[in-house]
């Protein structure tokens, strides 16, 4: 088994707001992230796939194919978008880094055959990242 990681970046806006809470509660829990005008980040996404090296190509997965899959299933929808307002996943849940990582996993997990998705790592900032292994 070998593990291959491809990195990509996207920039998006979001805010945190639980409509079942008062403005005061939202502000207390989410602080400046609760500003309904939103704010943005440059997210760095690392997608790790696991698999055996193909005897003919020497690849775990064709990197160009992986890049195309990332673009088609993630970046085209996420980059330069407002996550709360434009992504179906976040119509009913908050676009936290945790939930974005899970959403990206669900978009990619079935697309990488015969390799397997091993990990989605999403950096919101250089000092904060989330890992999701599909567990």
């Amino acid at each position, binding site marked *: 088994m070998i593990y291959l990681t491809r990195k990509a970046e996207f920039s998006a806006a979001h805010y945190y707001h639980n409509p079942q809470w008062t403005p005061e509660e939202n502000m207390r829990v989410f602080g400046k992230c609760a500003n309904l005008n939103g704010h943005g980040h440059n997210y760095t996404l690392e997608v790790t796939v*696991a698999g055996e090296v193909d005897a003919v190509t020497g690849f775990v997965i064709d990197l160009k194919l992986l890049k195309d899959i990332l673009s088609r299933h993630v970046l085209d929808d996420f980059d330069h978008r407002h996550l709360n307002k434009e992504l179906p996943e976040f119509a009913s849940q908050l676009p936290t880094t945790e939930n974005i990582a899970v959403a990206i996993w669900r978009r990619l997990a079935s697309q990488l055959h015969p390799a397997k998705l091993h990990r989605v790592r999403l950096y919101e900032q250089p*000092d904060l990242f989330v890992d999701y292994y599909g567990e």
Partner: protein
Amino acid sequence: MKVYLTRRYLFSASHRLHNPALSDAANCETYGKCNHPYGHGHNYFLEVTVSGPIAPDTGMLCDLAALDSAVSREVLSRFDHQNLNQLQDFSSIIPTTENLAIQIQQILSRTSLPAHLEGIRIEETSNNSFEYAGHQLPRSLSHMQGVEHDGSR
């Protein structure tokens, strides 16, 4: 559903690697320039990884401010701008980054954190980093368990 969240912190400290049980020549041989008599320092980057389910009402694993506050209070304030050799933590052990990693993991494992502590990783320089997760394998190396298992069959 389980996610892992890692937060990165910075602290600066000095140390000297020296074992008083060894001769000066043996210390020099073992530790090289890290044995220079007056010590030296590093900017240490500490990564703390916690894990657990996502809370449905916040969409978050845990309160980041609470994590920052605990790490700052228990670790950063203890080590930042200190000479590690002078601290009680290193009164009988050498302040290598291996031992520093173990100390920090043990401190955090005794600390009330807003999510389960998975382990820590510490960079002494951009070329050296150390991971410690107590008795378990660090998450980044956990796929090795399968490799070891396969190899033992």
